[in-house]
């Protein structure tokens, strides 16, 4: 068992020294598109794509340079500038973990940029869409590349902002505006955790920089309540960004945004930031049987089941995929809670998920594109002949996500399940169950969309999408086919990541014939078969039947929104109303009352001024007498 390698200060130039360009390109793109505004309408989308591709090229070159270094030198900190003097400097940390993320973000991100050219071609504000996409890529890269928690937090909130803007891209729809706001506010609850976690880190270790933190932890291994608190608070932050229980409710609503947004932000990249945070802060979740590490796994397992159950009941194709995203990130969290033994599988699943989920979402977008933006799967059916490429790529993504043997998802998800069964048997078997449900709801989705009878609206004329949309789909589905096997077999990813995240007691081995793996496959087959019986062979009713209590439970997102509403929103509204009333009537009332009191008293007192000189004279006399009397009494005369 080894802890992560020490971070070395990068001095030589080279690609690593220029890695800040990765962030600068998309940031520049966003700035140009936002500042020049309508002037860029004609070529704005091209600039956006170019900037994203440029960033991808820088990421690849940096990756190659990292590969060329010996393992113990693969963690390089690049100093940029002094940020808050005396507290933290801005810098980048280029190591196997961050560069893996950077490749995923810029790679998948660029494909989604390209896809969006086609998808958004009819939108008059396509340029603005691309500026937000570029902003997102820049912020996400800052999140994963920053060498300190403050930089990470800036990126963290930056992606939150981009997500807010993109969910609300069609802000004239009230539902989109509400969903965007909800996503931001729920995320802020998580940010509160991350923020307080940073307070405790700084108070305990006197630094927020990863390299310093690494040294401090190596010298005095942390223990005790502070670390547990840090871990739990960071977990809260991760729950917000990654839509894990109990902060999951925003993700389903976030599907109000254009579909490429759902693919890029709410499936492939941003929502995985929580997993990144947990893995990056691995030292605070150590050892794997500590409270906070177990909490991560428990949250992951609970969310993977919740997401899967929600996915079963949705007729909206995007919401079904959103439920599945929650569920898959639950798997990653489960893996990330298991320590170095699970990191490689969690990150591996994160990467392959990035490919196949982007593939699925973009496929869904392609279907919607051909079906007049219809999202209700009950109004699809039999589309495989009309959209052959979309169908083929979607089907590959589907096979990958249910863990069909030898496809990407099989290796990474099975890896997580096996590791979990080994370390946390109860959670592990729950994950097995979740895989079975995944088999059901994903098959349901495929059958309802591409098989069976046509249940289209009258004016629907499904057609295959243009090449600019199908090419990205094909590239993504290639990743969905092979990437998992490449990363997991012979532990390629494990050894690549180990300088950054440390190694486990025993090097994990992928076992093709483990009990858990075989049970998983059997359950997936059962789930898929059940889906075939219910939705493939049988006719799908055009209007959703009422269903059992369980169905309603799942349709209502496990009553998450109802819970939030009754626990937070209503009491919050009462509190607000009371506070406003108290401020106006209580505090201000007191002040105004005092003023009115003084005014009233003086109004009465002035009646004494009668205008009769002789009555004044009398009061003067009395006054003088009183004064004289008082002086006599005091006896000073």
């Amino acid at each position, binding site marked *: 068992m080894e802890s992560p390698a020490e971070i070395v*200060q990068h001095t030589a130039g080279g690609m690593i020294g220029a890695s800040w360009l990765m962030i600068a390109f998309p940031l520049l793109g966003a700035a140009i598109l*936002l500042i020049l*505004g309508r002037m860029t309408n004609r070529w704005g989308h091209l600039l956006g794509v170019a900037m994203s591709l440029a960033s991808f090229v820088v990421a690849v070159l940096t990756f190659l340079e990292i590969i060329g270094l010996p393992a113990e030198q693969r963690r390089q*900190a690049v*100093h940029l*500038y*002094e*940020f*808050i*003097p*005396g*507290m*933290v*400097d*801005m810098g980048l940390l280029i190591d196997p973990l961050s560069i893996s993320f950077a490749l995923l973000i810029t790679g998948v991100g660029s494909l989604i940029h390209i896809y969006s050219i086609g998808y958004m071609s009819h939108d008059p504000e396509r340029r603005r869409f691309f500026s937000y996409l570029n902003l997102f890529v820049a912020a996400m890269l800052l999140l994963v590349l920053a060498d300190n928690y*403050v930089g990470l937090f*800036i990126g*963290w*909130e930056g992606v939150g*902002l981009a997500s807010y803007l993109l969910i*609300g891209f069609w*802000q*004239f*729809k*009230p539902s*989109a*505006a*509400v969903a*965007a*706001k909800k996503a*931001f*506010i729920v995320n*802020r*609850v998580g*940010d*509160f955790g991350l*923020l*307080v976690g*940073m*307070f*405790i880190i*700084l*108070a305990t270790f*006197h*630094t*927020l*920089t990863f*390299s*310093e933190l690494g040294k401090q932890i190596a010298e005095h291994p942390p223990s005790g309540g502070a670390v547990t608190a840090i871990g739990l608070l960071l977990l809260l932050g991760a729950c917000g960004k990654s839509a894990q229980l109990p902060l999951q409710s925003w993700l389903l609503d976030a599907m109000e945004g254009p579909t490429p947004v759902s693919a890029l932000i709410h499936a492939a990249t941003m929502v995985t930031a929580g997993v990144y945070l947990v893995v990056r802060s691995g030292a605070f979740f150590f050892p794997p049987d500590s409270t906070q590490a177990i909490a991560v796994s428990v949250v992951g397992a609970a969310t993977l089941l919740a997401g899967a159950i929600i996915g079963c009941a949705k007729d909206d194709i995007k919401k079904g995929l959103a439920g599945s995203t929650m569920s898959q990130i639950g798997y990653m969290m489960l893996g990330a809670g298991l320590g170095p033994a699970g990191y490689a599988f969690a990150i591996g699943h994160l990467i392959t998920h990035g490919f196949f989920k982007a593939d699925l979402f973009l496929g869904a977008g392609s279907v919607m594109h051909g079906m007049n933006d219809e999202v209700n799967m009950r109004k699809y059916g039999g589309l495989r002949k009309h959209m052959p490429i979309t169908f083929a790529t979607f089907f590959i993504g589907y096979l990958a996500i249910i863990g069909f043997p030898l496809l990407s998802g099989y290796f990474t998800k099975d890896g997580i399940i096996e590791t979990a069964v080994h370390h946390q048997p109860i959670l592990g078997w729950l994950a097995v169950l979740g895989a079975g449900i995944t088999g059901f709801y994903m098959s349901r989705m495929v059958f309802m969309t591409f098989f069976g009878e046509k249940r289209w609206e009258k004016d629907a004329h499904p057609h295959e999408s243009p090449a600019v949309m199908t090419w990205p789909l094909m590239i993504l589905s290639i990743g969905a086919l092979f990437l998992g096997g490449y990363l997991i077999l012979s532990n390629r990813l494990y050894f690549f990541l180990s300088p950054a995240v440390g190694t486990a007691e025993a090097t994990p081995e992928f076992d093709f014939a483990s009990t858990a793996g075989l049970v998983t496959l059997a359950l997936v087959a059962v789930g898929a078969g059940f889906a075939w019986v219910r939705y493939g062979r049988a006719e799908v009713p055009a209007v959703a039947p009422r269903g059992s209590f369980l169905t309603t439970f799942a349709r209502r997102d496990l009553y998450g929104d109802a819970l939030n509403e009754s626990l937070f929103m209503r009491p*919050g509204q009462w*509190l*607000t*109303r009371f*506070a*406003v009333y108290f*401020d106006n009537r209580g*505090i*201000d009332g007191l*002040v105004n009352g005092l*003023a009115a009191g003084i005014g009233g008293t003086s109004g009465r007192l002035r009646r004494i001024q009668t205008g009769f000189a002789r009555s004044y004279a009398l009061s003067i006399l009395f006054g003088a007498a009183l004064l004289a009397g008082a002086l006599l009494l005091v006896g000073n005369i």
Partner: protein
Amino acid sequence: MSPWLPILMAVPVLGAIVVALLPKGSDKLAKQATLLVSLVVLVLTLVMAVQFKTGGPRFQFQAVYDWIPSFGVKFGVGVDGIALVLIALSAVLVPIVVLASWHDADGTQSADGTLITPKRSVKTYFSLLLVLEAMMIGVFASTDIFLFYVFFEAMLIPMYFMIGSYGGAQRSYAAVKFLLYSLFGGLLMLVAVIALYVVAGKGTFMFPELVGVIQDPATQKWLFAGFFIAFAIKAPLWPVHTWLPDAAAQAPAGAAVLLVGVLDKVGTFGMLRFCLELFPDAAKAFTMPIVVLAVISIIYGAIVAIGQTDMKRLIAYTSISHFGFIVMGVFAMSQVSQSGAALYMVNHGFATGALFLAAGFLIARRGSPHIADYGGVQKVTPLLAGFFLIAGLAGLSLPGLSSFVSEFMVMIGTYTSSAFGSGALAVAAIVSALAVILAAVYILWMVQRTLNGPTAEPVKAFKDLNVREIVVLAPLIALIIGFGFFPKPLLDVINPTVTQTLVNVKVDNPAIAEKGAGQ
């Protein structure tokens, strides 16, 4: 003797006289002259700021003239780092406000179509603006406590007229409330100033000579209270805050910017310089109750802001929340928290200024401050909506914008402050961090109701920002983003002053992360 500060004050005063003496009907000329004068002041301030030596003595550009020799009152001016950045803030905001209020003094159309005519002429408004600028510079530059007091009170006069003569429908009520509140605080401060003079027995009001003179703890407490109450009203701190929403809502947008952006900073500036350094023991004794008040301000201001239906009142309540942060940072007595608080004063000026001005532009188009009267603005005027959104995001301290840096420093500085060795400050920091969530609620809910959704009928006639309005907002937004990523220039100026303050307060609380810096 350096002529910089007296010149900085004299230029706007002379400008004000010239503007006031212009013949009737030359409104346009008055506006142009005011703009020119304020730009001259800005340039002079920047030239002066460049010459400020960060490693030099605490007070620079000092100039001291005898004023009332029999009482030892001097016209003493000089700036330390914090005063310098606040003067720079004023100098930046005034030209922007002049440009923004180009038509504010011409009369406003209210929602029901009635014209609210100002009580006084256009040139008077701009001349008052310049007088106010001179006083704002003076109040931050004073090194003589009596002079500080004079400016502190005199500032009320132009602001009183700007609210009372050019404001909205309830302007008289708001102006009188503002004046009475401030005068009440000022009176207590006057008593404390005189008592300080008598008790110290040094025959001078000069601040540097009075530091550390009062030793008796009981005396310190009484004098501290006199100063603190005045500053708490000015800041404003819960529960003496209710004048601000009224004043800010009734004032023309430009005056509201100066009121909240600069005038109120005098309160927190005064706490940091006078309350802490003159009466260190009392400050330490009162820290916990004051931090509690600050935390109440933070949370209470945010919650009440959520419930507001009037845009300008909403922004005013967010400011009460933000001032809570500044006060908490000041009294947490650590290098990081106090630097953060001083930086917050500047950043808040820019952020709230931008928000008030953007809201003012919206209100000028619709004639109503009520949030419910808007909807779907983004579709009609994307540029205005964009600026409004960025200013709003600065208001909720989005990382990457300047207000985040300061809010983060205040909170983390408070959490890590070892000044009192108790967990109470840590609890305060954690509770105040809840405002992060509340801030998102009040800003984004306002944004949702005004900018998003279906376009309201009257909104369809809106015109997007004209060149003048863009010139007003763009520099503020640029500053907000610029200092969000690179706050070092401001912090380098502020930090030595804060260190000196902490030395005078005798708090041994070194910069927390010396080791982490520079790696």
